[in-house]
């Protein structure tokens, strides 16, 4: 069975393979994003500033660390979004996203 991602080699290989097994996707960042954005961001379409590919945020790769959440492009591995929480703030780095298109809310029933 082929691997999805080329297995890394070298001294950091073990750490990287461990990180790969722990990786999640944008769905897992939905909760913390809901603390900042009124709209659901997992269905938003984000354009990676690195490679220009547009995907729904739910389809991006998420690495959650104690220091915060890193959302990466599955195509070029570039960081699209970083979210970190401190006692006084939620810190966002959106520089890896060229733009984000958020679906408009459905009209009230």
């Amino acid at each position, binding site marked *: *069975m*082929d*691997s*999805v*991602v080329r297995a890394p080699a070298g001294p950091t290989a073990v750490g990287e393979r461990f990180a*790969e*097994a*722990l*990786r*999640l*996707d*944008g*769905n*897992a960042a*939905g*909760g913390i994003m*809901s*603390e900042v954005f*009124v*709209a*659901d961001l*997992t*269905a938003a379409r984000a354009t990676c500033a690195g490679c220009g590919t547009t*995907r*729904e*945020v*739910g*389809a991006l790769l998420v690495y959650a660390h104690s220091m915060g959440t890193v959302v990466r492009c599955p195509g070029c591995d570039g960081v699209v979004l970083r979210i970190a929480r401190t006692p006084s703030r939620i810190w966002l780095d959106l520089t890896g996203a060229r733009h984000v298109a958020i*679906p*408009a*809310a*459905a*009209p*009230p*029933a």
Partner: protein
Amino acid sequence: MPATSETVSTARSEPTASPTATTAAPAASRARPIAWRLASVVDVVPETPRARTLRLDVPGWPGHRAGQHVDVRLTAEDGYQAQRSYSIGSAPEELAVALTVERLDDGEVSPYLTDELRPGDRLELRGPIGGHFVWDVALGGPLLLVAGGSGIVPLMAMLRHRAIVLAGANDGARHRVPARLLYSARRWDEVIYRDELARLHEGDPTLDVALTLTREPPPEWAGFRRRIDRMMLAEVAWPPAERPHAFVCGPTPLVESVAAALVDLGHDPAAVKTERFGPTGGAT
């Protein structure tokens, strides 16, 4: 770790065990941030030796879509908090919100949810969360669902929703949204929702259910006996020309391997949606 929570008086609602068909519209985008709520445990239902379904009454629940999840937060007496995500297993049409949790022996949160919670206990949760890994009948089919272990939970919400919506429908409507499930579990007694899946399958010729048991199949087992691979998917999945909506959920390695295989078989990557549960296949 006990959840310490103030008792909050909530509006009474009458949860019911049986799904109720409604004509409710799909939940619209919310107009305000998702708040943490105090849910009450109505019932804890054993599914398998390690899995329990928590049926919850959530005050102010806005409704959900099949595929969405909630975040659950436990607070210990010393203030330490642990938070995990759990997929919603109930259909949007059901009155109680149901989470199915599989216990991880060294988990921090799951053993409390599966072994300690009792009806009447309260649980802090927020949701529903997610707009990407969601499906409703209105989106059409064919529907291809691939589950590993507890990854079956959000896919079951989709199948339950589909069954409720199509309950009174004619054959034409059913054939417009045919569904196939491929579900990988280690053993026969670890197949979550096993009997219900059999009932759904028997009652609906437009639903196919295939199981693969990867560790100890029963001696008379005539189904698949290995991890999901490209060949199995080629056999079970629709051809790419049918343009199925594919949803893959479970442990990260399984999800990534299945998604890659589907793309390799020719399916549009944008039509293959994934929800990774991490290395162990379920929240700890």
